[in-house]
Protein backbone atom coordinates (compact mmCIF):
# COMPACT_ATOMS: atom_id res chain seq x y z
CA UNK A 1 0.00 0.00 0.00
CA UNK A 2 1.77 3.10 -1.17
CA UNK A 3 1.32 6.40 -2.90
CA UNK A 4 0.93 4.93 -6.40
CA UNK A 5 -1.86 2.66 -5.10
CA UNK A 6 -3.67 5.67 -3.69
CA UNK A 7 -3.10 7.48 -6.98
CA UNK A 8 -4.63 4.58 -8.91
CA UNK A 9 -7.71 4.69 -6.67
CA UNK A 10 -8.17 8.42 -7.03
CA UNK A 11 -7.62 8.48 -10.78
CA UNK A 12 -10.48 5.99 -11.09
CA UNK A 13 -12.82 8.54 -9.50
CA UNK A 14 -11.57 11.21 -11.90
CA UNK A 15 -14.28 10.32 -14.40
CA UNK A 16 -16.92 11.78 -12.12
CA UNK A 17 -14.95 14.86 -11.14
CA UNK A 18 -15.32 18.30 -12.59
CA UNK A 19 -12.36 19.84 -14.43
CA UNK A 20 -11.34 21.66 -11.26
CA UNK A 21 -11.31 18.31 -9.48
CA UNK A 22 -8.94 16.92 -12.08
CA UNK A 23 -6.63 19.92 -11.72
CA UNK A 24 -6.76 19.46 -7.94
CA UNK A 25 -5.70 15.83 -8.29
CA UNK A 26 -2.73 16.76 -10.50
CA UNK A 27 -1.62 19.52 -8.12
CA UNK A 28 -1.95 17.09 -5.20
CA UNK A 29 0.16 14.38 -6.75
CA UNK A 30 2.77 16.41 -8.54
CA UNK A 31 3.38 19.31 -6.20
CA UNK A 32 2.67 17.63 -2.89
CA UNK A 33 3.14 13.87 -2.91
CA UNK A 34 5.95 13.90 -5.46
CA UNK A 35 7.82 16.76 -3.74
CA UNK A 36 7.30 15.07 -0.36
CA UNK A 37 8.75 11.76 -1.52
CA UNK A 38 11.49 13.02 -3.79
CA UNK A 39 12.75 16.05 -1.87
CA UNK A 40 11.27 16.70 1.56
CA UNK A 41 11.88 13.24 3.00
CA UNK A 42 15.63 13.56 2.47
CA UNK A 43 15.70 16.98 4.13
CA UNK A 44 14.05 15.59 7.28
CA UNK A 45 15.92 12.28 7.06
CA UNK A 46 18.54 13.15 9.65
CA UNK A 47 16.34 15.32 11.85
CA UNK A 48 16.92 13.35 15.00
CA UNK A 49 20.45 12.07 14.42
CA UNK A 50 21.67 15.59 13.66
CA UNK A 51 19.82 17.28 16.48
CA UNK A 52 22.76 18.33 18.65
CA UNK A 53 22.68 19.73 22.18
CA UNK A 54 25.58 21.48 23.85
CA UNK A 55 25.90 18.92 26.63
CA UNK A 56 27.37 15.52 27.29
CA UNK A 57 24.47 14.47 29.52
CA UNK A 58 23.03 11.18 28.15
CA UNK A 59 19.34 11.37 27.31
CA UNK A 60 19.22 15.15 27.13
CA UNK A 61 19.20 15.22 23.33
CA UNK A 62 16.44 12.60 23.14
CA UNK A 63 14.27 14.41 25.62
CA UNK A 64 14.78 17.82 24.04
CA UNK A 65 14.09 16.49 20.55
CA UNK A 66 10.89 14.92 21.76
CA UNK A 67 9.88 18.12 23.52
CA UNK A 68 10.33 20.37 20.50
CA UNK A 69 9.20 17.91 17.79
CA UNK A 70 6.18 15.98 19.10
CA UNK A 71 5.20 14.97 15.55
CA UNK A 72 7.56 15.38 12.63
CA UNK A 73 6.53 17.58 9.69
CA UNK A 74 6.87 14.65 7.32
CA UNK A 75 4.42 12.51 9.27
CA UNK A 76 1.97 15.40 9.55
CA UNK A 77 2.11 15.92 5.81
CA UNK A 78 1.66 12.22 5.07
CA UNK A 79 -1.39 12.13 7.34
CA UNK A 80 -2.72 15.31 5.76
CA UNK A 81 -2.38 13.90 2.25
CA UNK A 82 -4.05 10.64 3.23
CA UNK A 83 -6.95 12.39 4.97
CA UNK A 84 -7.42 14.88 2.16
CA UNK A 85 -7.55 12.13 -0.46
CA UNK A 86 -10.09 9.92 1.27
CA UNK A 87 -13.29 11.98 0.83
CA UNK A 88 -12.95 11.29 -2.89
CA UNK A 89 -13.34 7.62 -2.05
CA UNK A 90 -16.80 8.49 -0.64
CA UNK A 91 -17.78 9.46 -4.17
CA UNK A 92 -16.28 6.22 -5.54
CA UNK A 93 -18.24 4.19 -3.00
CA UNK A 94 -21.49 5.95 -3.87
CA UNK A 95 -20.97 5.40 -7.60
CA UNK A 96 -20.19 1.71 -6.98
CA UNK A 97 -23.34 1.40 -4.88
CA UNK A 98 -25.48 2.99 -7.63
CA UNK A 99 -23.92 0.78 -10.30
CA UNK A 100 -24.53 -2.30 -8.15
CA UNK A 101 -28.20 -1.37 -7.75
CA UNK A 102 -28.66 -0.72 -11.45
CA UNK A 103 -26.86 -3.94 -12.36
CA UNK A 104 -29.19 -5.94 -10.13
CA UNK A 105 -32.20 -4.25 -11.71
CA UNK A 106 -30.94 -5.04 -15.22
CA UNK A 107 -30.20 -8.68 -14.35
CA UNK A 108 -33.63 -9.09 -12.84
CA UNK A 109 -35.45 -7.82 -15.91
CA UNK A 110 -35.57 -10.47 -18.60
CA UNK A 111 -34.86 -8.19 -21.56
CA UNK A 112 -31.60 -8.03 -23.58
CA UNK A 113 -28.88 -7.57 -20.95
CA UNK A 114 -25.42 -7.67 -22.55
CA UNK A 115 -25.62 -4.29 -24.25
CA UNK A 116 -27.22 -2.68 -21.20
CA UNK A 117 -24.53 -4.02 -18.85
CA UNK A 118 -21.84 -2.73 -21.18
CA UNK A 119 -23.41 0.71 -21.35
CA UNK A 120 -23.72 0.67 -17.54
CA UNK A 121 -19.98 0.11 -17.21
CA UNK A 122 -19.16 2.93 -19.60
CA UNK A 123 -21.80 5.47 -18.68
CA UNK A 124 -20.90 8.70 -16.99
CA UNK A 125 -23.37 9.67 -14.30
CA UNK A 126 -24.47 13.28 -14.42
CA UNK A 127 -23.47 15.25 -11.36
CA UNK A 128 -26.99 15.70 -10.02
CA UNK A 129 -29.17 14.61 -7.16
CA UNK A 130 -27.60 12.40 -4.50
CA UNK A 131 -24.28 12.24 -6.36
CA UNK A 132 -24.12 16.04 -6.25
CA UNK A 133 -24.66 15.98 -2.49
CA UNK A 134 -22.03 13.26 -1.99
CA UNK A 135 -19.54 15.18 -4.10
CA UNK A 136 -20.24 18.48 -2.31
CA UNK A 137 -19.86 16.76 1.09
CA UNK A 138 -16.54 15.27 0.00
CA UNK A 139 -15.36 18.76 -0.98
CA UNK A 140 -16.39 20.14 2.41
CA UNK A 141 -14.49 17.38 4.20
CA UNK A 142 -11.42 18.01 2.07
CA UNK A 143 -11.51 21.68 3.02
CA UNK A 144 -11.94 20.84 6.69
CA UNK A 145 -9.02 18.41 6.71
CA UNK A 146 -6.70 20.76 4.81
CA UNK A 147 -7.50 23.66 7.10
CA UNK A 148 -7.31 21.50 10.19
CA UNK A 149 -3.88 20.10 9.40
CA UNK A 150 -2.44 23.46 8.40
CA UNK A 151 -3.70 24.91 11.67
CA UNK A 152 -2.26 21.98 13.61
CA UNK A 153 1.16 22.47 11.96
CA UNK A 154 1.03 26.19 12.71
CA UNK A 155 0.11 25.65 16.36
CA UNK A 156 2.57 22.82 17.08
CA UNK A 157 5.54 24.60 15.50
CA UNK A 158 4.59 28.23 16.28
CA UNK A 159 4.47 29.30 12.67
CA UNK A 160 6.06 27.92 9.55
CA UNK A 161 9.61 28.91 10.34
CA UNK A 162 12.17 26.49 11.70
CA UNK A 163 14.52 28.11 14.22
CA UNK A 164 18.23 27.30 14.20
CA UNK A 165 18.56 27.14 17.94
CA UNK A 166 16.19 26.06 20.68
CA UNK A 167 16.85 26.26 24.39
CA UNK A 168 15.88 23.29 26.46
CA UNK A 169 15.73 22.63 30.20
CA UNK A 170 13.88 19.32 30.41
CA UNK A 171 15.15 16.74 32.86
CA UNK A 172 17.83 15.25 32.63
CA UNK A 173 19.46 18.28 30.96
CA UNK A 174 21.57 19.92 33.71
CA UNK A 175 20.58 23.56 33.04
CA UNK A 176 19.32 25.49 30.09
CA UNK A 177 21.15 23.97 27.12
CA UNK A 178 21.40 25.14 23.54
CA UNK A 179 20.18 22.61 21.00
CA UNK A 180 20.79 23.03 17.31
CA UNK A 181 18.40 21.88 14.62
CA UNK A 182 19.81 20.48 11.38
CA UNK A 183 19.08 22.26 8.07
CA UNK A 184 16.61 24.83 9.45
CA UNK A 185 16.61 27.07 6.36
CA UNK A 186 15.95 24.20 3.97
CA UNK A 187 13.18 22.98 6.27
CA UNK A 188 11.61 26.44 6.37
CA UNK A 189 11.68 26.61 2.55
CA UNK A 190 9.91 23.28 2.23
CA UNK A 191 7.40 24.07 4.99
CA UNK A 192 6.43 27.28 3.22
CA UNK A 193 6.25 25.44 -0.12
CA UNK A 194 3.94 22.76 1.28
CA UNK A 195 1.80 25.38 3.03
CA UNK A 196 1.48 27.29 -0.25
CA UNK A 197 0.44 24.23 -2.25
CA UNK A 198 -1.99 23.32 0.50
CA UNK A 199 -3.58 26.79 0.21
CA UNK A 200 -3.74 26.44 -3.58
CA UNK A 201 -5.56 23.14 -3.12
CA UNK A 202 -7.98 24.78 -0.68
CA UNK A 203 -8.67 27.56 -3.19
CA UNK A 204 -9.30 24.96 -5.92
CA UNK A 205 -11.70 23.10 -3.65
CA UNK A 206 -13.59 26.28 -2.77
CA UNK A 207 -13.81 27.22 -6.46
CA UNK A 208 -15.11 23.73 -7.26
CA UNK A 209 -17.75 23.99 -4.52
CA UNK A 210 -18.85 27.40 -5.81
CA UNK A 211 -19.03 25.97 -9.33
CA UNK A 212 -21.18 23.04 -8.18
CA UNK A 213 -23.55 25.32 -6.32
CA UNK A 214 -23.81 27.67 -9.31
CA UNK A 215 -24.48 24.71 -11.61
CA UNK A 216 -27.24 23.41 -9.33
CA UNK A 217 -28.82 26.85 -9.15
CA UNK A 218 -28.77 27.38 -12.94
CA UNK A 219 -30.10 23.89 -13.51
CA UNK A 220 -32.96 24.79 -11.22
CA UNK A 221 -33.58 27.98 -13.26
CA UNK A 222 -33.46 26.37 -16.72
CA UNK A 223 -35.80 23.58 -15.72
CA UNK A 224 -38.41 25.14 -13.45
CA UNK A 225 -40.13 22.75 -11.09
CA UNK A 226 -42.24 20.15 -12.91
CA UNK A 227 -40.70 20.41 -16.37
CA UNK A 228 -38.13 18.18 -18.06
CA UNK A 229 -35.90 18.76 -21.07
CA UNK A 230 -37.91 16.26 -23.15
CA UNK A 231 -41.20 17.95 -22.34
CA UNK A 232 -40.04 21.52 -23.03
CA UNK A 233 -38.09 21.36 -26.27
CA UNK A 234 -37.81 24.97 -27.31
CA UNK A 235 -35.50 24.55 -30.26
CA UNK A 236 -31.86 23.68 -30.79
CA UNK A 237 -30.45 26.36 -28.48
CA UNK A 238 -31.92 24.88 -25.32
CA UNK A 239 -30.82 21.37 -26.21
CA UNK A 240 -27.24 22.51 -26.85
CA UNK A 241 -27.05 24.48 -23.61
CA UNK A 242 -28.43 21.48 -21.72
CA UNK A 243 -25.73 19.21 -23.17
CA UNK A 244 -23.00 21.65 -22.25
CA UNK A 245 -24.31 22.19 -18.72
CA UNK A 246 -24.51 18.48 -18.02
CA UNK A 247 -21.13 16.96 -17.11
Amino acid at each position, binding site marked *: MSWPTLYAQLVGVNRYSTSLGKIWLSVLFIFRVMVLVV*AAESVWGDEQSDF*TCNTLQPGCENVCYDHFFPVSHIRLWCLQLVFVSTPTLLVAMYVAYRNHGDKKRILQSSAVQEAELESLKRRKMPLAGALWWTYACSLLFRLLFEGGFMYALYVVYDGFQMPRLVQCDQWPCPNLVDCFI*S*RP*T*EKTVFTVFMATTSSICMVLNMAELAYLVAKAVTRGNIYPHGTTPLATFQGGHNEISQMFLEE
Partner: protein
Amino acid sequence: MPLTPPAEPDPEPKMNWASFYAVISGVNRHSTGIGRIWLSVLFIFRILVLVVAAESVWGDEKSGFTCNTQQPGCNSVCYDHFFPISHIRLWALQLILVSTPALLVAMHVAHRRHVDKKLYKLSGRASPKDLEQIKTQKMKITGALWWTYVISLFFRIVFEVTFMYVFYMIYPGYKMIRLVKCDSYPCPNTVDCFVSRPTEKTVFTVFMLAVSGVCILLNVAEVVFLVGKACSKHLHNAGDSTMGAWIAQKLCSY
Protein backbone atom coordinates in the same frame (compact mmCIF):
# COMPACT_ATOMS: atom_id res chain seq x y z
CA MET B 1 10.99 8.79 -29.69
CA PRO B 2 9.34 6.53 -27.15
CA LEU B 3 11.33 5.59 -24.07
CA THR B 4 10.54 2.81 -21.69
CA PRO B 5 10.85 3.70 -18.02
CA PRO B 6 13.84 2.09 -16.31
CA ALA B 7 13.02 -1.37 -14.98
CA GLU B 8 12.92 -1.26 -11.22
CA PRO B 9 13.62 -4.38 -9.18
CA ASP B 10 11.61 -3.05 -6.17
CA PRO B 11 8.79 -5.33 -5.06
CA GLU B 12 6.82 -2.31 -3.89
CA PRO B 13 6.06 0.53 -6.30
CA LYS B 14 7.22 3.98 -5.17
CA MET B 15 5.99 7.43 -6.07
CA ASN B 16 9.14 8.40 -7.88
CA TRP B 17 10.55 9.76 -11.08
CA ALA B 18 9.45 6.70 -13.07
CA SER B 19 5.79 7.30 -12.28
CA PHE B 20 6.36 11.00 -12.95
CA TYR B 21 7.75 10.02 -16.36
CA ALA B 22 4.61 7.98 -17.04
CA VAL B 23 2.47 11.04 -16.32
CA ILE B 24 4.54 13.50 -18.36
CA SER B 25 5.32 11.29 -21.35
CA GLY B 26 1.61 11.05 -22.12
CA VAL B 27 1.94 14.58 -23.48
CA ASN B 28 4.54 13.36 -25.98
CA ARG B 29 1.93 12.52 -28.61
CA HIS B 30 0.89 16.13 -28.98
CA SER B 31 4.37 17.62 -28.98
CA THR B 32 6.41 18.68 -31.93
CA GLY B 33 9.61 16.77 -32.82
CA ILE B 34 11.72 19.25 -30.88
CA GLY B 35 9.41 18.80 -27.90
CA ARG B 36 10.06 15.07 -27.90
CA ILE B 37 13.82 15.64 -28.05
CA TRP B 38 13.46 18.04 -25.11
CA LEU B 39 11.58 15.42 -23.12
CA SER B 40 14.23 12.79 -23.80
CA VAL B 41 17.04 15.18 -22.83
CA LEU B 42 15.13 16.02 -19.65
CA PHE B 43 14.68 12.43 -18.63
CA ILE B 44 18.01 10.99 -19.66
CA PHE B 45 20.48 13.77 -18.98
CA ARG B 46 18.80 15.41 -16.03
CA ILE B 47 16.47 13.16 -14.06
CA LEU B 48 18.43 9.96 -14.65
CA VAL B 49 21.77 11.64 -13.88
CA LEU B 50 20.21 13.22 -10.78
CA VAL B 51 18.93 9.93 -9.45
CA VAL B 52 21.80 7.69 -10.47
CA ALA B 53 24.81 9.90 -9.86
CA ALA B 54 24.20 13.28 -8.27
CA GLU B 55 22.22 12.02 -5.29
CA SER B 56 25.12 9.85 -4.13
CA VAL B 57 27.59 12.73 -4.49
CA TRP B 58 25.46 14.92 -2.26
CA GLY B 59 24.43 12.03 -0.02
CA ASP B 60 26.94 12.80 2.71
CA GLU B 61 26.86 16.57 2.32
CA LYS B 62 25.95 17.15 5.94
CA SER B 63 27.70 14.26 7.63
CA GLY B 64 30.87 15.00 5.66
CA PHE B 65 30.81 18.72 6.46
CA THR B 66 33.46 19.13 9.15
CA CYS B 67 34.41 22.21 11.14
CA ASN B 68 37.64 22.68 12.99
CA THR B 69 36.05 22.90 16.41
CA GLN B 70 34.61 20.65 19.06
CA GLN B 71 31.84 23.09 19.96
CA PRO B 72 28.56 21.19 19.64
CA GLY B 73 26.15 22.80 17.22
CA CYS B 74 28.79 24.75 15.31
CA ASN B 75 28.76 22.21 12.45
CA SER B 76 24.99 22.40 12.08
CA VAL B 77 24.84 26.14 12.19
CA CYS B 78 27.67 26.68 9.72
CA TYR B 79 26.24 24.10 7.35
CA ASP B 80 22.89 25.83 7.47
CA HIS B 81 24.51 29.22 6.91
CA PHE B 82 26.44 28.20 3.79
CA PHE B 83 23.90 25.75 2.31
CA PRO B 84 20.43 27.21 2.84
CA ILE B 85 19.02 24.76 0.32
CA SER B 86 20.84 21.82 -1.15
CA HIS B 87 21.59 21.54 -4.89
CA ILE B 88 19.73 18.26 -5.09
CA ARG B 89 16.50 19.72 -3.75
CA LEU B 90 16.79 22.74 -6.03
CA TRP B 91 17.26 20.46 -9.04
CA ALA B 92 14.34 18.27 -8.03
CA LEU B 93 12.07 21.31 -7.69
CA GLN B 94 13.39 22.72 -10.97
CA LEU B 95 12.68 19.50 -12.83
CA ILE B 96 9.18 19.21 -11.40
CA LEU B 97 8.31 22.84 -12.16
CA VAL B 98 9.81 22.73 -15.64
CA SER B 99 7.87 19.60 -16.60
CA THR B 100 4.46 20.71 -15.43
CA PRO B 101 3.60 23.30 -18.14
CA ALA B 102 3.35 20.30 -20.47
CA LEU B 103 0.29 19.28 -18.46
CA LEU B 104 -1.41 22.53 -19.54
CA VAL B 105 -1.22 21.22 -23.09
CA ALA B 106 -2.59 17.83 -22.00
CA MET B 107 -5.54 19.54 -20.30
CA HIS B 108 -6.29 21.61 -23.39
CA VAL B 109 -6.16 18.52 -25.60
CA ALA B 110 -8.53 16.69 -23.23
CA HIS B 111 -10.89 19.68 -23.33
CA ARG B 112 -10.79 19.78 -27.14
CA ARG B 113 -11.55 16.06 -27.31
CA HIS B 114 -14.49 16.59 -24.96
CA VAL B 115 -15.88 19.32 -27.23
CA ASP B 116 -15.29 17.19 -30.35
CA LYS B 117 -17.16 14.33 -28.73
CA LYS B 118 -20.15 16.58 -28.02
CA LEU B 119 -20.11 17.90 -31.58
CA TYR B 120 -20.00 14.37 -32.94
CA LYS B 121 -22.96 13.36 -30.78
CA LEU B 122 -24.84 16.45 -31.93
CA SER B 123 -24.23 15.67 -35.60
CA GLY B 124 -25.41 12.10 -35.10
CA ARG B 125 -22.07 10.32 -35.42
CA ALA B 126 -22.15 8.78 -31.98
CA SER B 127 -21.01 5.25 -32.81
CA PRO B 128 -18.29 3.76 -30.57
CA LYS B 129 -15.93 3.62 -33.57
CA ASP B 130 -16.20 7.37 -34.14
CA LEU B 131 -15.70 8.12 -30.45
CA GLU B 132 -12.65 5.85 -30.39
CA GLN B 133 -11.29 7.71 -33.38
CA ILE B 134 -11.47 10.97 -31.42
CA LYS B 135 -9.42 9.43 -28.63
CA THR B 136 -6.64 8.17 -30.87
CA GLN B 137 -6.55 11.09 -33.29
CA LYS B 138 -3.49 13.29 -33.08
CA MET B 139 -4.37 16.91 -32.43
CA LYS B 140 -2.98 19.50 -34.78
CA ILE B 141 -1.27 22.37 -33.01
CA THR B 142 -3.48 25.13 -34.38
CA GLY B 143 -5.63 27.90 -33.03
CA ALA B 144 -6.03 28.10 -29.26
CA LEU B 145 -3.97 24.94 -28.75
CA TRP B 146 -1.07 26.72 -30.48
CA TRP B 147 -1.36 29.52 -27.95
CA THR B 148 -1.51 27.09 -25.02
CA TYR B 149 1.56 25.29 -26.34
CA VAL B 150 3.55 28.50 -26.83
CA ILE B 151 2.54 29.76 -23.37
CA SER B 152 3.66 26.45 -21.84
CA LEU B 153 7.01 26.79 -23.63
CA PHE B 154 7.32 30.32 -22.35
CA PHE B 155 6.69 29.17 -18.76
CA ARG B 156 9.26 26.41 -19.17
CA ILE B 157 11.88 28.93 -20.26
CA VAL B 158 10.99 31.29 -17.41
CA PHE B 159 11.25 28.52 -14.79
CA GLU B 160 14.57 27.28 -16.15
CA VAL B 161 16.11 30.75 -16.19
CA THR B 162 14.71 31.57 -12.73
CA PHE B 163 16.26 28.48 -11.20
CA MET B 164 19.59 29.12 -12.89
CA TYR B 165 19.50 32.61 -11.43
CA VAL B 166 18.58 31.31 -7.97
CA PHE B 167 21.51 28.89 -8.17
CA TYR B 168 23.83 31.71 -9.11
CA MET B 169 22.58 33.85 -6.23
CA ILE B 170 22.94 31.13 -3.61
CA TYR B 171 26.13 29.58 -4.92
CA PRO B 172 28.03 32.38 -6.70
CA GLY B 173 30.06 31.27 -9.67
CA TYR B 174 28.54 27.75 -9.64
CA LYS B 175 31.75 26.54 -8.05
CA MET B 176 31.85 24.53 -4.86
CA ILE B 177 34.56 25.84 -2.54
CA ARG B 178 36.69 23.54 -0.44
CA LEU B 179 36.86 25.70 2.63
CA VAL B 180 34.43 28.14 4.20
CA LYS B 181 35.07 30.33 7.21
CA CYS B 182 32.27 30.55 9.70
CA ASP B 183 31.67 32.65 12.81
CA SER B 184 27.97 32.18 13.58
CA TYR B 185 26.94 31.51 17.16
CA PRO B 186 27.85 29.11 18.86
CA CYS B 187 31.17 28.82 17.04
CA PRO B 188 33.74 30.34 19.39
CA ASN B 189 35.76 32.36 16.83
CA THR B 190 36.09 32.15 13.10
CA VAL B 191 36.39 28.46 12.36
CA ASP B 192 37.44 26.68 9.19
CA CYS B 193 34.81 24.35 7.80
CA PHE B 194 35.50 21.87 5.04
CA VAL B 195 32.99 20.86 2.40
CA SER B 196 32.92 17.22 1.33
CA ARG B 197 33.70 16.32 -2.35
CA PRO B 198 33.89 19.89 -3.68
CA THR B 199 35.42 19.04 -7.07
CA GLU B 200 32.91 16.29 -7.84
CA LYS B 201 30.10 18.65 -6.85
CA THR B 202 31.47 21.36 -9.13
CA VAL B 203 31.64 18.89 -12.02
CA PHE B 204 28.01 17.85 -11.55
CA THR B 205 26.84 21.42 -11.05
CA VAL B 206 28.47 22.50 -14.31
CA PHE B 207 27.04 19.44 -16.09
CA MET B 208 23.49 20.09 -14.89
CA LEU B 209 23.89 23.73 -15.79
CA ALA B 210 25.04 22.87 -19.31
CA VAL B 211 22.12 20.50 -19.86
CA SER B 212 19.76 23.14 -18.50
CA GLY B 213 21.19 25.55 -21.09
CA VAL B 214 20.66 22.97 -23.83
CA CYS B 215 17.04 22.57 -22.73
CA ILE B 216 16.52 26.33 -22.84
CA LEU B 217 17.94 26.38 -26.39
CA LEU B 218 15.63 23.53 -27.41
CA ASN B 219 12.62 25.38 -25.99
CA VAL B 220 13.61 28.61 -27.78
CA ALA B 221 14.08 26.65 -31.03
CA GLU B 222 10.64 25.11 -30.57
CA VAL B 223 9.04 28.54 -30.08
CA VAL B 224 10.79 29.82 -33.21
CA PHE B 225 9.66 26.73 -35.14
CA LEU B 226 6.03 27.13 -34.06
CA VAL B 227 5.98 30.85 -34.80
CA GLY B 228 7.63 30.25 -38.17
CA LYS B 229 5.12 27.53 -39.04
CA ALA B 230 2.18 29.74 -38.08
CA CYS B 231 3.57 32.65 -40.11
CA SER B 232 4.15 30.53 -43.20
CA LYS B 233 0.65 29.07 -42.96
CA HIS B 234 -0.75 32.60 -42.65
CA LEU B 235 1.17 33.78 -45.71
CA HIS B 236 0.07 30.70 -47.64
CA ASN B 237 -3.53 31.33 -46.70
CA ALA B 238 -3.30 35.05 -47.51
CA GLY B 239 -2.38 34.10 -51.10
CA ASP B 240 -5.29 31.69 -51.41
CA SER B 241 -8.13 33.78 -50.07
CA THR B 242 -11.09 31.75 -51.20
CA MET B 243 -14.14 31.45 -48.99
CA GLY B 244 -13.57 27.73 -48.56
CA ALA B 245 -10.02 28.15 -47.29
CA TRP B 246 -11.08 30.91 -44.92
CA ILE B 247 -13.91 28.80 -43.49
CA ALA B 248 -11.60 25.79 -43.14
CA GLN B 249 -9.09 27.90 -41.25
CA LYS B 250 -11.76 29.28 -38.93
CA LEU B 251 -13.16 25.81 -38.21
CA CYS B 252 -9.72 24.50 -37.39
CA SER B 253 -8.94 27.35 -35.04
CA TYR B 254 -10.19 26.15 -31.70
